[in-house]
């Protein structure tokens, strides 16, 4: 059967991807959440080749396809719905495809890390807090509560490869559970924790390549890159098998072979190779900071954050421990602090400067946690995503690290950086303070200068094609031209007492077919609600107008609405004022009928709806006499 044809027919019978809220599948059925059930052509659906039945349950529209085929139809279905959804961002997408491979690789790493940030923040912050507190109160370490909290605090990092594997599996399109299994294999308890052994010479041998190259039975705790590569391999193998294994065998053969092959490759090639690369980075780093005059530290301070991105920073504990064992002076930790607080500070500058609320609410806690020594949220959630803050943080980190080296700052322990680092740098308090402040200040300043909100859509070029297509000769100052496209409705028929009874003024309503409000005439935006569901205009002809998109939609708190102007702006006839997502608003149970109200109705003798049936943008909607 033709999966693509089946999927596209299903999609069109649903009323297109605009009517689709979400899609999932189980062993036999597509489970779809639909915006407007009225648009679904059930009889058409049932007759599609490959569809064995359709019914509604639990708020879902369930389309029965069958075992072994449903996942393939689903794959095509998602592609069809997804490709169209992304078409709004065609430009962005094309740009992303053109980006050099290393940028795409970093973006992929970011995409993998962002979803697991909450787990790392929760346990990582606890880890930093516990570290700091137990340095301040040495007795704390022997208490029961400490033992308990200690388990909480390192669980996510101990099993980090599983989290990464799951997230990477989602990104690469592998089965999430198979991904988790690969992650589990890599840190299986029967393997020795690679961080708790010094050198690998006495370890049991797990595998031997032709008797020449022994692979030791060590786990990959705290590793990032080997896990990501392993899951990438898994996804390739799994997809390859899905295409070739007959449907009846797919359920058994594909998972078995995928895990077997990926697991074997991971434990014998991918893991060892990337561990080896990490060891080289470690050796290089040790050599680097031995360059005198702060130059080495300067470079390392800059390179530190990228090594966090690559996941190799977990090895720095080894450097720090060997320093402490050597002369009790950990000169690595101040570099780490400089780099960490600089990344936090760069993210903080973004948090302060951005006007994007979602970004702000994410960047702020991410920054805070970086100051406490946990940088992943700031680096992956903010700085890597925008690039420039990462560079700002690297510059700040470099400056701070150079200061630390010149001032001879050292720590007497390891595992703590940032604010709590003061507790283990009491011998060189002033130097540490300077390191901290300079890294913070430089990173903040550079990030502040470099970071700009990406092309805020609210400043998009005003669209005026409608204004041009409707020549102004026919313009009559005594008429109101439709700010929306759709069906003209008598105000008295608006299903809301307040509007219908003309409490707010008189006018007419439009039941919109397109989610856009344009200026009906030249004028000024006198009121724009924070929730963007209503806009007040004072037109140049003296008319005051309120356009209220939907009924009771104030309760949506702005969800589904986007404003393209702000209070006090001059607007010209036909300019886009607000766009709104009709299926979304309807799916939340609200009506999108939009009263267009002349609020200074007392200044007019008569206000009459002048259109019947459908109106286009800027068609005559209301006639008035003064």
């Amino acid at each position, binding site marked *: 059967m033709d999966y693509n044809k089946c999927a596209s027919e299903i999609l069109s019978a649903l009323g297109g991807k605009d009517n689709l809220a979400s899609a999932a599948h189980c062993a036999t059925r597509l489970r779809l959440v639909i915006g407007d059930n009225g648009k679904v052509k059930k009889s058409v659906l049932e007759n599609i080749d490959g569809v064995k039945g359709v019914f509604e349950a639990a708020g879902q529209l369930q389309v029965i396809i069958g075992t072994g085929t449903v996942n393939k139809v689903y794959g095509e279905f998602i592609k069809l719905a997804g490709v169209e959804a992304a078409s709004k961002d065609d430009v962005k997408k094309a740009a992303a495809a053109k980006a050099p491979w290393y940028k795409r690789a970093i973006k992929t790493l970011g995409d993998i890390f962002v979803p697991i940030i909450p787990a790392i923040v929760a346990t990582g912050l606890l880890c930093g807090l516990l570290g700091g507190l137990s340095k301040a109160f040495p007795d704390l370490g022997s208490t029961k509560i400490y033992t308990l909290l200690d388990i909480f605090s390192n669980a996510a990092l101990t099993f980090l490869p599983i989290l990464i594997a799951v997230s990477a599996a989602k990104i690469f399109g592998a089965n999430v559970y198979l991904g988790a299994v690969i992650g589990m294999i890599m840190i299986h308890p029967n393997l020795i924790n690679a961080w708790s052994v010094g050198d690998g010479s006495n370890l049991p041998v797990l595998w031997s390549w032709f008797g020449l190259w022994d692979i030791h039975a060590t786990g990959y705790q705290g590793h990032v890159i080997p896990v990501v590569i392993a899951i990438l391999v898994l996804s390739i193998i799994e997809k390859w098998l899905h295409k070739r294994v007959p449907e009846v065998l797919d359920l058994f053969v594909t998972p078995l072979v995928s895990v077997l092959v990926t697991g074997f490759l991971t434990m014998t090639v991918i893991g060892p190779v990337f561990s080896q690369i990490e060891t080289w980075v470690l050796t290089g780093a040790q050599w680097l900071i031995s360059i005198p005059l702060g130059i080495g530290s300067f470079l390392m301070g800059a390179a530190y954050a990228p090594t966090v991105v690559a996941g190799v920073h977990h090895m720095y504990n080894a450097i720090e421990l060997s320093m402490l064992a050597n002369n009790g002076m950990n000169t690595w930790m101040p570099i780490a602090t400089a780099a960490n607080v600089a990344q936090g500070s760069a993210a903080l500058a973004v948090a302060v400067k951005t006007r994007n609320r979602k970004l702000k609410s994410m960047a702020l806690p991410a920054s805070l946690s970086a100051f406490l020594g946990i940088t992943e949220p700031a680096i992956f959630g903010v700085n890597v995503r925008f690039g420039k803050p990462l560079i700002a943080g690297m510059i700040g980190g470099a400056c701070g690290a150079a200061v630390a080296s010149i001032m001879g700052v050292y720590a007497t322990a390891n595992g703590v950086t940032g604010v709590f680092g003061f507790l283990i740098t009491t011998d060189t308090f002033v130097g540490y303070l300077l390191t901290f402040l300079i890294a913070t200040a430089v990173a903040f300043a550079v990030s502040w200068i470099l970071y700009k909100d990406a092309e805020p859509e609210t400043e998009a070029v005003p669209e005026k094609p409608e204004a041009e297509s409707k020549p102004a000769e026919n313009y009559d100052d005594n008429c109101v031209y439709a700010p929306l496209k759709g069906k003209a409705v008598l105000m008295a028929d608006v299903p809301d007492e307040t509007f219908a009874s003309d*409490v707010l003024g008189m006018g007419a309503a439009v039941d919109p077919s397109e989610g856009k409000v344009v200026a009906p005439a030249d004028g000024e935006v006198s*009121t724009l*609600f*924070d*929730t963007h569901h209503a806009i*007040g205009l004072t037109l140049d002809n003296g008319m005051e107008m*309120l356009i209220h998109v939907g009924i009771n939609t*104030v309760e949506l708190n702005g969800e589904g609405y986007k404003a393209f102007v702000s209070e006090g702006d001059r607007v010209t006839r036909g300019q886009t004022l607000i766009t709104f997502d009709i299926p979304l608003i309807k799916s939340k149970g609200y009506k999108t009928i939009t009263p267009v109200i002349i609020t200074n109705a007392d200044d007019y003798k008569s206000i009459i709806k002048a259109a019947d049936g459908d109106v286009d943008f800027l068609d005559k909607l209301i006639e008035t006499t003064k």
Partner: protein
Amino acid sequence: MKQFTYTIKDEVGIHARPAGNLVKLIKGYSSTVTIEKEGKPAINATALMKLMGLGVKCGDTVKFSIEGDDEEASAKAIEEFMTANL
């Protein structure tokens, strides 16, 4: 003249519907009513767009000044309306 202040408790503040109802209520009396939000000049309470333009939000305090023959009754009605709706 009668004056009183009221602190908004409604989550979304004075939005379209309550503003319209408030204007309608005030127009039912002959007294002149002005509303003042801290830091902004007082406005005529019957000017719907200006009233919504104040952007009164939850937690904001507004001051009503009512002057006219039926100011007692008007003030009482406004206060009741505010308490019941906002």
